[in-house]
């Protein structure tokens, strides 16, 4: 990991020390601005800010996760720019990427937390199980909950990377056997310290979104504008549907009926095949994946809604958004039968009443 004495240098100094030319630095800033969806006119300001920014220490904790988010992060950009990002920050702890293991790794974690107490950026990956005192996920004998509690104490801000840490994700899906909760849940219930929290959801999040959020924090030293779910508005402000290039087909009423039918091959809207684009907020339709190559809809599959809370429990991925759980045919037949019975009863009562009246006369 990075050397200790680098920490007091500014980012600009570190980059120049690594032989990055000013043009290289400008390229880095332009790319970062594009990442953060900031207008190109802001590049000079960003260059100035990044040049003078101090290097924050970053601790990355992985809990109940599949490591997809860490994989996504390491796919962001070219190795050069990515390693720039990782050298720009001082990644003091990351289990998948670090060379140290065992007690040496744990020592590194505790040293970093102690030295930069109150100043480090905490990245959290994976949900935290709390059932049965959190025994379902432990590292070095400590439960995730305990580690999270300790780490949150000294964090300047927390970034929940991926839907699992942001909203609970797969582990939280029905019936949630481990009692998995999100970072936000833990803060709300007071089980960990409350710190500024950025939720970068997605299963996994788009790589450049993760690095874009980091870049924002580096440049401006603060949390970006967040939506109601704590996600950066710049990436999660719009739905897939609103920026989908297939939108004109939706508007014209041209829908693919099955996978690979004529409509599907012509690139028609995938609403009937279960696309959850209208209710999913993410940057997939604009930023796309794999360096802008494509995203699920463009590859012919409807959006799963993976950046939304509880997306695993919202019904089939292949049922259109406008369908719902209307019950069963048997249930409706039962309700209809009950109604008929009441109706017959009411009519019978009315007829008997008529008989009674006419008999009285």
């Amino acid at each position: 990991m990075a050397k200790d004495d680098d920490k007091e240098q500014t980012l600009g100094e570190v980059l120049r020390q690594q032989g990055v030319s000013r043009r290289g630095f400008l390229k880095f800033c332009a790319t970062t601005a594009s990442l953060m969806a900031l207008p190109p006119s802001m590049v000079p300001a960003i260059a100035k800010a990044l040049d003078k920014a101090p290097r924050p220490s970053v601790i990355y904790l992985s809990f109940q996760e599949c490591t997809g988010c860490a994989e996504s992060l390491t796919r962001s950009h070219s190795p050069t720019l990515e390693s720039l990002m990782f050298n720009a920050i001082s990644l003091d702890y990351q289990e998948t990427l670090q060379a140290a293991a065992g007690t040496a790794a744990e020592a590194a974690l505790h040293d970093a937390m102690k030295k930069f107490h109150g100043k480090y950026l905490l990245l959290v990956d994976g949900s935290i199980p709390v059932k049965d005192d959190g025994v379902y996920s432990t590292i070095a004998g400590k439960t995730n909950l305990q580690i999270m509690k300790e780490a949150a104490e000294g964090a300047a801000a927390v970034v929940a990377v991926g839907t699992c840490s942001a909203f609970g994700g797969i582990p939280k899906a029905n019936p949630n056997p481990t009692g998995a909760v999100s970072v936000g849940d833990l803060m709300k219930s007071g089980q960990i310290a409350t710190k500024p929290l950025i939720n970068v959801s997605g299963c996994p999040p788009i790589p450049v979104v993760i690095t874009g959020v980091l870049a924002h924090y580096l440049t401006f030293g603060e949390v970006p504008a967040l939506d109601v779910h704590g996600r950066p508005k710049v990436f999660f402000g719009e739905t897939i549907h609103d920026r989908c290039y297939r939108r004109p087909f939706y508007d014209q009423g041209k829908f693919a009926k099955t996978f690979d039918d004529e409509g599907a091959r012509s690139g028609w809207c995938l609403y009937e095949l279960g696309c959850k684009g209208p209710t999913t907020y993410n940057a997939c339709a604009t930023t796309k994946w794999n360096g802008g190559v494509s995203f699920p809809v463009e590859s012919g599959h409807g959006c799963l809604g993976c950046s939304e809370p509880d997306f695993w429990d919202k019904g089939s991925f292949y049922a259109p958004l406008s369908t719902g759980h209307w019950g069963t045919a048997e249930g409706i037949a039962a309700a209809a039968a009950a109604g008929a019975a009441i109706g017959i009863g009411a009519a019978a009562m009315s007829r008997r009443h008529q008989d009674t009246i006419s008999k009285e006369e």
Partner: protein
Amino acid sequence: MDLLTFARGPALQWSVAIFFLGVLWRLFGVFLLRRKKDYSKPRSTHLWRGAIKGLIVHLWPYKEFRPKVVQSYILGYIFHIGLAIVVFFFVPHILFIKNIIGVGWGGLPNSFIYITGAVTIAALVAMLVKRIANPVTRLLSNFDDYFSWFVTIAPVVTGLMAAAHWGGRYEHVLAVHILSFELLLVWFPFSKLMHTFFFVVSRGTTGALFERRGTSA
């Protein structure tokens, strides 16, 4: 559970169940009532012909009444037809129905639906204004009249709001739209909205009776 999941889940199940229960209750309850015996001599026995004639004749007001009521008829047709177009030819709605009855059909372009929805709302508002402005209808109107109007216009308004992304986060407006439809479902069987099923029998029966008595329809 968030609002949209609730609207598409338990709320939908209950409202659909209540709708079916209520409609069958009303249908059985009304059609099993006794009918008054008609002891007069029938002038004609072709009662079915009379029933059909009754249905057709009531589609447009009698010449004598036209000046007073034709406006209401026109507005009524506009909003009924507009509502039918929006409900049965907007593709997400078709998919909703197809999910239940297993059969779907082709839809119309969204922009056409949106315009029709706006026209439907305009007609409904005009009808409410007429109802309140006229002292007689204002006197006669009850809760059923006003609330039925409300549960009819609410889904159209919230539907357009959702389509326009106006009024809050899309998933919330969509949830409110679905809930407003569920409100209509629940109110339907116990209100004047049952005219949907009854009007055919009422008009047909009137026609049949007229035929029996030999009056011109």
